[in-house]
């Protein structure tokens, strides 16, 4: 460690203020929870924590831009602050706010403190994942997301189903973590570094490369993809999802569907070099440093995932199970972008794979969290909303809620004017834009994708049909729940707003900026 390096290490503290705030508030809430059991209090406190973190993020130093020579070595630090990090951190903190609102009335007074404290840690984990530039940090950040999840899965509910969900998630999560770190260990072995920048540098260096030790590289690739695939809910690593979604609290289902998927994708982007530190030059394409076969792996993973998810979602009657399979299917669509991203050099494709991924991820977050929030909002202990039939006739009793839900579902189908459409469009357009010898493979991928989208239409539409076209069996009586309503409003606003200009333009600009690191890398590579 050089002197300059040490200086830089000291200099990164300002960047970490938001996470520190969150951790601090978490400690306060943990401790305070032993004194007072009041869900409003602790939700309010953690809300303040998120707001403070957001403010700190906003006021904090700008990103470590590659143009700044003083920070030329910033990329060697264990944490990296590029536009992608900033975007994801902001998103993470917003997610935190959203989930506080969503869970405000869902968690008992007694468990509220624990719950909110865990959520704070989890969100801090998101921020750290986004920033991680070192295997150690990344591993820790991922575990910061995982471990609170175990607790949160069984804290709010004490029935057998919740416990079973927690057990399944816990065991399989540990299993997948082991897979990820196994991959990390080989990655480390190949590069001799834990720093991701250096690893990518080494992998992309012309003289030495992973291709000299194909076995290690391949094993690393597969185990990392498999382990993180658990978080993405990519088939065949998704099996826990339906059971856990069904058994666990609705809020947790939303959390797993969006936050864990997002962290998984971010980790993949970082580790496999889809988004590279500014000065690292990809030897050929992005994302294929470990193995030439990365796109093929993602190709198959995407196909299996979306097909499996959609086929099984078709036969579901339980709402949360259905949404769990839908989240699997959507993971499949998103994986298309990773399969295509290596080929979408900017001058070739009109749309970058990473951009499409980030866009879709955010759009998906809005609509899926919205859908789960709706289920949570409608459910009462006396009249739970479990099966599709429970939604019958919602449009008659609660037209506004039904319309909101319909918007989420239409967005999940991918009907225009919603964020889901724009996202799917970018994904499929990306897949069609691939310009390579075997471009037809990606056209085929897009074809399988749209066929799946059409299949997906069937079961989402079934929900809409139930809400609109059937008479209510037993009227739902959602309790007045202001925070829950706020969640819905935010989600529906995002779902619609991000689907059409100016919202879509705005988001596209930001995800372009976030993927900018990669773009810069390619600019350099061309020179």
């Amino acid at each position: 460690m050089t002197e300059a390096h040490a200086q830089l290490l000291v200099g990164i503290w300002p960047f970490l203020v938001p996470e520190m705030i969150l951790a601090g508030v978490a400690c306060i809430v943990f401790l305070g929870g032993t004194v007072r059991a009041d869900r409003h209090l602790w939700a309010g406190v953690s809300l303040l924590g998120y707001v403070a973190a957001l403010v700190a993020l906003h006021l904090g130093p700008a990103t470590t831009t590659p143009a700044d020579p003083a920070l030329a070595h910033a990329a060697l630090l264990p944490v990296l602050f590029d536009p992608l990090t900033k975007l994801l951190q902001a998103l993470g903190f917003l997610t935190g706010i959203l989930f506080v609102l969503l869970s405000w009335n869902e968690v008992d007074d007694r468990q509220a403190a624990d719950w909110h404290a865990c959520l704070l840690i989890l969100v801090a984990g998101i921020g750290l994942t986004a920033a991680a530039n070192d295997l150690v940090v990344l591993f820790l950040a991922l575990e910061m997301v995982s471990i609170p999840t175990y607790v949160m899965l069984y804290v709010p509910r004490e029935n057998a189903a919740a416990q079973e969900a927690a057990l399944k998630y816990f065991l399989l999560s540990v299993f997948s973590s082991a897979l990820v770190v196994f991959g990390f260990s080989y990655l480390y072995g190949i590069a001799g570094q834990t720093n991701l920048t250096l690893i990518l540098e080494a992998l992309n260096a012309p003289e030495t490369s992973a291709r000299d030790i194909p076995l290690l590289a391949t094993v690393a690739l597969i185990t990392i993809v498999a382990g993180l695939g658990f978080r993405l809910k990519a088939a065949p690593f998704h099996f826990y999802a339906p059971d856990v979604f069904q058994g666990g609290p609705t809020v947790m289902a939303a959390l797993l569907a969006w936050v864990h998927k997002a962290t998984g994708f971010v980790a993949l982007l970082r580790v496999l070099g889809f988004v590279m530190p500014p000065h690292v030059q990809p030897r050929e394409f992005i994302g294929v440093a470990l193995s030439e076969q990365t796109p093929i792996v993602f190709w198959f993973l995407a196909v299996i995932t979306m097909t499996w998810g959609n086929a099984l979602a078709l036969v579901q009657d339980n709402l949360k199970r259905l949404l769990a399979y839908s989240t699997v299917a959507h993971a499949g669509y998103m994986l298309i972008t990773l399969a295509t991203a290596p080929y979408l050099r900017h001058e070739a494709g009109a749309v970058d794979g990473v951009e499409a991924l980030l866009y879709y991820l955010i759009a998906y977050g809005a609509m899926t969290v919205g859908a789960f929030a709706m289920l949570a909002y409608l459910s009462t202990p006396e009249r739970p909303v479990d099966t599709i039939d429970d939604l019958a006739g919602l449009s008659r009793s609660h037209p506004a809620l039904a319309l909101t839900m319909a918007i989420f579902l239409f967005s999940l189908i991918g009907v225009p004017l919603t964020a889901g459409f724009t996202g799917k469009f970018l994904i499929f357009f990306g897949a069609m834009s691939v310009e390579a010898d075997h471009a037809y493979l990606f056209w085929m991928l897009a074809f399988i994708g749209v066929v799946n989208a059409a299949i997906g239409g069937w079961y989402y539409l079934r929900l809409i049909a139930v809400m609109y076209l059937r008479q209510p069996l037993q009227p739902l009586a959602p309790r007045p729940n202001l925070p829950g309503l706020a969640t819905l409003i935010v989600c529906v606003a995002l779902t619609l707003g991000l689907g059409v200009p100016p919202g879509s333009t705005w988001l596209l600009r930001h995800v372009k900026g976030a993927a900018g690191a990669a773009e810069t890398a390619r600019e350099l590579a061309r020179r």
Partner: protein
Amino acid sequence: MFDVCSYLWLIPALPLLGCIATAALGPRWLRGQSHWPCILGAVGACVLSVLTLIAVPQGAVNADGAPVPYLCSYYEWFRAGDVDVSFALRADGLTAVMLVTVTFIGSLIVIYSVGYMHGDPGYPRYFAVVSLFLFSMTGLVLANNFIVLYAFWEGVGLCSYLLIGYWFSRPSAAAAARKAFLVTRLGDIGLFLGILVLWTETNSLDFDVVLGQAHTLSAEILTIACLLLFAGAVGKSAQFPLHVWLPDAMEGPSPVSALIHAATMVTAGVYLVARCMPLFGQAPDAQLVVAVIGGFTALLAALIALTQTDLKRVLAYSTISQLGYMFLALGSGVEHHRLAALAATAAIFHLVTHAFFKALLFLGAGSVMHAMGDVIDMRRFGGLRKLLPVTHWTFLCGAAALAGFPVIFSGFWSKDEILAVTWEASRGGPHAVIYFVLLVTALGTAGLTAFYTFRAYFMTFWGEQRLPEEAGHHPHDAAPVMGVPLMILAAGAVLAGIVLGPTGLFGGFLEHYWSRSELPTRLQAAEAGGHALNVPLMLISAAVALGGIGLAYVLYVRTPALVGTAARMLGGLYGWSRNKFYLDELFEALFVRPFAGLARLCKTLDQYLVDGLVDLIGQVPAFVGYVMRPFQNGLVQFYALLMALGVAGFLLATMLR
């Protein structure tokens, strides 16, 4: 005189205006006076038609000395690529003759209808549609290109449909109307396809261009095109095998039967073939078909007419039979240009005389019906001679004309020309024998015609006086508004033949137009001698006609008991004739049932097979879902195993590659 084009458009436009005025004003304001727009339109059109008839011979001639028709293009209907259709009208000899016939008879019938339809609740509707018919019919004969012709052709079909179904609450009328429309439309498809073939070959739709290029077409194309066009004529003019609609069409009011289903619309097929004579004349094979169909239809219809007891049906079959004669004449116009011109002239001449006497007969039958309280079954009345004197005498004139009573009556002259043409055709050419057989058939048919015509006449007007209950206590003869048209028509029926025929007025007028420029061609080579009266043939036909009338007199006036004996003697033939040779049943079994069955089959197929298959494809994803369901068995270790297998699978696949 005025320029022909300046008033030619008024000939169809006046009835159209009449139609619009009646339709718009009739139900609310005119009510019982709804006939005025229609009469004014018809009479106006008639006057203008006569003007046209006068103007046509004064028209220009071209270098060859052939007359040039007046061509008046009014506006472009539609145009796309090479399909260029203008609302163009033409006035030449043929058109003028047709126009005068149509509008004159039309006017009379419209006037007659005032009395006949009096008090009917649908009075305005009747006159509106009749006006529309006159519009369509005049348009049809005025059309200068095939598409406009086709349009009006369909238009008259529509009017026929509406008028047959005029009393639409009668199920039989509704059924007859549909049948008429559909059967004629079957022929119309042929016409349209024929037009398509001609258009593809000549790139034009105008009569002059298409007919002028006829000699450039190959024989096969010509034959196909002619046969397709003829299919249209067969449908519209009720020739075998599409004649089945016409007898049923008698469900309409009698004036309609007179106007549309005897005098004008059904002759449109004859007009079409005559108009296309330059094509037909050069397609001997097609001509043979035309002649054979015509001759056969004439015979068949005459045979059926022998035993019908419904007065109007007898007349309907006689119409079919007479139209058959016309086609026989047209079909005989082969071999050389002179004969073709003769044939067309003969056919059109018969068309004109037939229009007079058949309209007369139908109106007479209508008058009988009117008096008998809408009963038309001849078995239920008789001896009406004294009761309905005007009707009786006029009917007799018509019957004599139809029977071809020698020398005076018009039918004799026109029929004779047809026989003469057929005789000419049988004197040479590859199909001479067939034409001779047709000639014999035609002669025989003439006898049958005389017989059944007078059978109907005797059954209705002779014998002891019998009245059906529906007639009420005081059946009265035709009122003047009905009687005067009857008398005018009767005069026409008697005199038209002898005035126009042997004097050569008609032939001279019309043949002038079948000039070389219209019939250029391969036919010119053989120039036949002039048209002279064929005295032996005339004698034979006169004898046959008189024989038929005599037989009818014997059977139905002198010794009515013989009828039963004769029927028994003929046995099966009588039954076949009585049942119209079971053709309706045959059609039912051959076409209607199979198509209905096919339709039901399609419906079932669509409901179960096609929809089922499509739904089945839709079920595939769900089926996949069911198949994959057992993987989700709830065992956490099984999930872990699948994950591990997934890793192993991907590892293997990646490494083996």
